[in-house]
């Protein structure tokens, strides 16, 4: 963020950073973003550590991951809710963090604008995609080979 520092006690300039008005706009979005980073961070520690523990440490860890493993989790409401909350919190936290980096390092107004729109578009697209995946998941797709799907598909 570039802003000129005025000499002490000089009168208030009408324009703030990025040439925006310094008039109070009601809601202080930067403050709520700051709070969001901290609140989501605390929750994410639990969700991500749990995710990594179940997927990497239990049983044979990463070697046990396959379609049938995911079918076991995404038919369980507990893990569905877990994954959805983790998806939303992590993407918004990461996207907001990336916005901070753009503000810090992108030098021109145009590059800042383009990069922030790119971040917003990818975050929204992936939230929609990830949410749809969890809610529309089909553990026993028609015609799938029996050795690739979960054992409970046989009884269908």
């Amino acid at each position, binding site marked *: 963020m570039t802003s000129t520092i005025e*000499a002490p006690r000089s009168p208030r300039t009408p324009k703030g950073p990025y040439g925006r008005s310094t008039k109070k706009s009601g809601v202080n979005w930067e403050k709520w973003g700051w709070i969001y980073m*901290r609140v989501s*961070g*605390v929750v*994410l*520690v639990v969700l*991500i*550590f749990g995710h*990594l523990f179940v997927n*990497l*440490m239990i049983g*044979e*860890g*990463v*070697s046990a*991951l*396959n*379609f*049938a493993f*995911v*079918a076991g989790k*995404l038919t369980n409401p507990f893990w569905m809710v877990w994954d959805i909350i983790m*998806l939303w919190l*992590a*993407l918004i936290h*990461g*996207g907001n*963090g*990336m916005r901070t*980096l753009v503000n810090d390092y992108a030098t021109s107004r145009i590059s800042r604008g383009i990069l922030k729109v790119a971040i917003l578009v*990818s975050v929204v697209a*992936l939230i929609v*995609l*990830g949410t*749809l*995946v969890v809610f*529309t*998941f*089909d553990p026993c*797709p028609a015609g*799938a*080979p029996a050795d*690739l*799907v979960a054992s409970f598909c046989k009884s269908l």
Partner: protein
Amino acid sequence: MPQTAGTLDSQQKTTSRRPAGTLYRGNTGMWSWVLHRITGVAIFFFLLVHILDTALVRVSPEAYNAVISQYQTPIMGLGEVALVGAIVFHAFNGLRIILIDFWNAKYQRVLFYVVIGLWVVTMLGFVPRHLINVFSH
């Protein structure tokens, strides 16, 4: 501000060539911040790819298994060690930032060593088990 000849500000008076320790510059404060940034960006880009690879469960079991089997190769196994190392650091240091903001900035340096300690302990628990899972298959 114009510098009047003959006066020294407090910074120039110190014997050290570096600016005096602040919360963020030059010492643990700065390095923890740099690492927090780098790990945050790395995790973000991993997550973008990770949601796409998970979405393959909606394509077909074959497509998902083909991609997830890439996660099970020795090289990716080492990559997962790096990823988990980055997340564990970002998570513990994130909690440190929160404690500094809401509790007491006085302990920021001590807390940094606590973060390093917890990171080492967590990685000692994770790495051997993960490498056994990766290399015994």
